[in-house]
């Protein structure tokens, strides 16, 4: 495992964000006629229903992010939400109410192609039952302009495992792809042991990585840790997105895992979303911090 070199970041004037160039493996074929450049947007950890001091504008943050995504020009081909759509509750009726409210908020997005997956807050207390009622399967794959996307569920099991059945499905799905296919994995928890002391890992990660490792062009986008983070396991890059509720401290940087305190002088600090441009030989990541008055 290796950390991604921060020097690969390039400041791009005028975009208001930071671009990260995520290269594909050497020898990766450019798109060619069958592959078009496109971009999609990743939002994560919206925790709809959260109430607490770490975000006194919890009900206003997601609408603000939706407005910011709607302001992008041009609009993305699609939008992904990498889990923890809602904040957990022990009450099954309240869980469904939050999922319904989240679904209704998504109706305000201009881009209508939306891909969702659960986080542990959505799915761990009922093994994904309520989530599936609203949004369908918790793992699936789809193709877009020459890239094969795989949504992996590592949260419906409250222990944070993918499980044998889904791993079998993953292997079958990968078998349909050419050896040099461009593959993007979307998931909630990190697929590598980022910081297991804070439960920032997936239990059966080795089995998932073992299945993915022979593939030359795999990139993982995930959430869960409420901060931007970039890492490599061999040739596979892993990119964590910011949250849209509250930021978390850097792994192991504080005695306890706890939200970073809200700063009234800099509301929404550490929150945001990202644009991911799929270019012929790399993904360009542009971070969009959430800004404005609370």
């Amino acid at each position, binding site marked *: 495992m290796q950390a991604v070199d921060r020097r690969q970041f390039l400041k791009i004037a005028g975009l208001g964000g930071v671009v990260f160039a995520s290269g594909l493996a050497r020898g990766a074929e450019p798109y060619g006629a069958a592959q078009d450049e496109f971009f999609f947007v990743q939002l994560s950890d919206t925790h709809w229903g959260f109430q607490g001091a770490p975000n006194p504008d919890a009900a206003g943050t997601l609408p603000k992010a939706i407005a910011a995504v709607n302001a992008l020009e041009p609009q993305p081909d699609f939008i992904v939400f990498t889990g923890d759509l809602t904040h957990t509750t022990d009450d099954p009726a309240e869980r469904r109410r939050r999922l319904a409210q989240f679904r209704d908020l998504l109706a305000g997005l201009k881009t209508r192609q939306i891909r969702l997956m659960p986080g542990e807050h959505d799915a761990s207390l009922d093994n994904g039952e309520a989530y599936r009622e609203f949004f369908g399967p918790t793992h699936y794959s789809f193709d877009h302009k020459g890239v094969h996307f795989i949504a992996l569920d590592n949260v419906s099991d409250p222990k944070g495992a993918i499980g044998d059945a889904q791993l079998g499905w993953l292997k079958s799905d990968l078998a349909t792809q050419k050896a040099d296919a461009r593959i993007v994995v979307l998931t909630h928890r990190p697929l590598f042991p980022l910081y297991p*002391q804070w439960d920032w890992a997936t239990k059966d990660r080795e089995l998932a990585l073992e299945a993915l490792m022979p593939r030359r062009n795999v990139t993982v986008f995930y959430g869960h840790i409420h901060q931007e983070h970039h890492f490599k396991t061999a040739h596979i890059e892993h990119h964590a997105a910011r949250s849209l509720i509250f930021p978390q401290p850097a792994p192991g940087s504080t005695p306890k895992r706890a939200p970073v305190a809200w700063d009234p002088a800099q509301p929404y600090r550490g929150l945001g979303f990202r644009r991911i441009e799929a270019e012929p030989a790399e993904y360009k990541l542009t971070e969009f911090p959430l800004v404005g008055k609370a």
Partner: protein
Amino acid sequence: MRRRAFLLVPFLIGTAWAQPEPRVIAIRARKFEFSPGELELKLGEPVVLELTTDDVHMGFDAPELNLHADILPGRVARVPFTPRKPGSFEFVCDVFCGSGHEDMGGVIKVIA
């Protein structure tokens, strides 16, 4: 006399080979804390952690010490352990148990 000496042999052998009884440390898990949340252990002292839960299925995970247990309601999870390195080692609940799960952790301090 010979008979008495014969009877003493297994006792002496048993005494010579006896290991100190491990110290038993009870840890209660409940939403959303471990009690106690901080353990102080001596380097090389064998202990047994006895973990119980007051409410739902919980987990105990101290990855740096390679210790793990599922804590199921109505059962005692026993984790034998002899600390071999000094330092502070975090543990967490690694079975999602509700809003507050992220706060549920503690530390094992091993004193040389």
